[in-house]
């Protein structure tokens, strides 16, 4: 499905490595299965040639890795950024989280990544091999002799179905052509929930959030969650671990998590991707983005470096908290 091929990326990385522009490469290597591809740092040509992979399962957003990576040593690090990753990249620069001088960013086009849970819904467990062709995924399982041929379109990750931009907003160099900001239907799902009754919404979120196992993966992967000390790590809070009796604590965790990134969330969708329980966390983030757009004017975090986030800004005629919901409801009617 990806137009850009693995070999083109390896070639680019090798040339930048050999001419000394960078001394290491942040890329992807194979995990235990073909679908759990892992971010990795390559320091030499040999490992790049052997271990570098690129397929429809390279969803990981590298921006956050740059924070720790740029602190490790002096040389530059080469990073491959998909269009949505470049927004996080800019947002982290806005927040001064890493040194731009230490990064060489190569923008790569993205045709949308595949969602393994959608693949598994079709062919079940026991996947032994996945081959990505131009428009298909050829999936072999240990239970069937004949491989499944799945149209890549049909297993596109949620965040890619509603892709907001094919445009790179930050790069040193681009492989392939740059795209445009896409008109997407990413707020449709949020609007659908808003139009439910309060009881229906409560039931929906109760069902979703009570599945949370508090693994904190959504927090750890989020490029906007970069505090070195997190309130949820406080062992004295009394609520740092999973409650069995009720689910308030998950609600609190998810409200605070989403609120903390409100106005800074670029809607990269990593939280939903890594959630082992498939909780649609992006619906919480998108709710904040939608509210911000409607109440305080259109704002895309990370679209440009140095823009002022809506929550650290104000105007004298902002709406009152009591009116916020009515104003939105009035719009819907």
């Amino acid at each position: 499905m990806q137009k850009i091929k693995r070999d083109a990326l390896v070639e680019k990385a090798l040339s930048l490595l050999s001419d000394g522009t960078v001394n290491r490469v942040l890329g992807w290597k194979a995990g235990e299965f073909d679908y759990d591809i892992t971010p990795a740092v390559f320091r030499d040509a040999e490992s790049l040639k052997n271990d570098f992979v690129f397929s429809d399962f390279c969803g990981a957003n590298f921006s956050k890795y740059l924070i720790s990576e740029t602190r490790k040593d002096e040389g530059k690090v080469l990073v491959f950024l998909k269009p949505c990753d470049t927004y996080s990249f800019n947002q982290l620069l806005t927040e001064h989280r890493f040194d731009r001088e230490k990064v060489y960013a190569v923008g790569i086009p993205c045709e949308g990544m595949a969602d393994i849970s959608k693949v598994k819904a079709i062919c079940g467990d026991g996947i032994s091999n996945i081959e990505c062709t131009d428009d298909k995924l050829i999936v072999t399982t240990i239970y069937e002799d004949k491989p499944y041929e799945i149209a890549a379109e049909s297993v596109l990750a949620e965040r890619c179905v509603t892709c907001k931009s094919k445009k790179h907003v930050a790069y040193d160099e681009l492989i392939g052509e740059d795209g445009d900001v896409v008109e997407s239907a990413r707020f449709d799902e949020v609007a659908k929930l808003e139009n439910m009754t309060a009881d229906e919404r409560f039931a929906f979120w109760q069902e979703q959030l009570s599945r949370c196992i508090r693994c904190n993966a959504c927090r750890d992967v989020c490029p906007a969650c970069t505090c070195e000390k997190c309130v949820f790590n406080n062992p004295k809070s009394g609520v740092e671990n999973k409650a069995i009796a009720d689910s308030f604590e998950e609600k609190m965790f998810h409200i605070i998590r989403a609120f903390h990134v409100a106005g800074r969330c670029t809607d990269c969708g990593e939280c939903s991707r890594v959630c082992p329980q498939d909780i649609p966390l992006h619906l919480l983030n998108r709710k904040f983005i939608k509210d911000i757009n409607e109440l305080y004017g259109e704002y895309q975090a990370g679209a440009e470096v140095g823009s002022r986030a809506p929550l650290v800004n104000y105007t004298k005629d902002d709406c009152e908290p009591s009116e916020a919901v009515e104003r939105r409801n009035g719009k819907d009617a």
Partner: protein
Amino acid sequence: MQVNGYKPLIVAFCCNWCSYAGADLAGNNRLAYPADVKIIRVPCSCRVNPMFVLRAFQRGADGVIICGCHPGDCHYTSGNYFTRRRMSLLFSMLDYLGIERERTRVEWVSAAEGAKFAATMNDFAEKVAALGENKRLEDLRCKR
């Protein structure tokens, strides 16, 4: 304040420079407001972290009200403007999760508005009492 024999617990975050003094004035003027309202003094309404609101609910509050200076009158020039944005988003999110709207409120009360303070608290306590116990944001671990 009782509705059908139910007494709510209300947490009011009051700005030191206005509403807290407003509460004082209400008391000096012998204006009655429900004893179920527990006031927590904060240096500015923007000191109220969204987590404070949720934590109050978690520990058994049935309603949370945040009182600050009128927009434009902040002791720190702009604190309450930030409160306004934050709480707009937080309340909208709580509504999105299906939590009753009337349980949360932001009200601007100056130090001279003792009567408004008492009226606001009476009205809020009545609305919260009518909603009954906070079930959707309770945490049994905190209710031992």
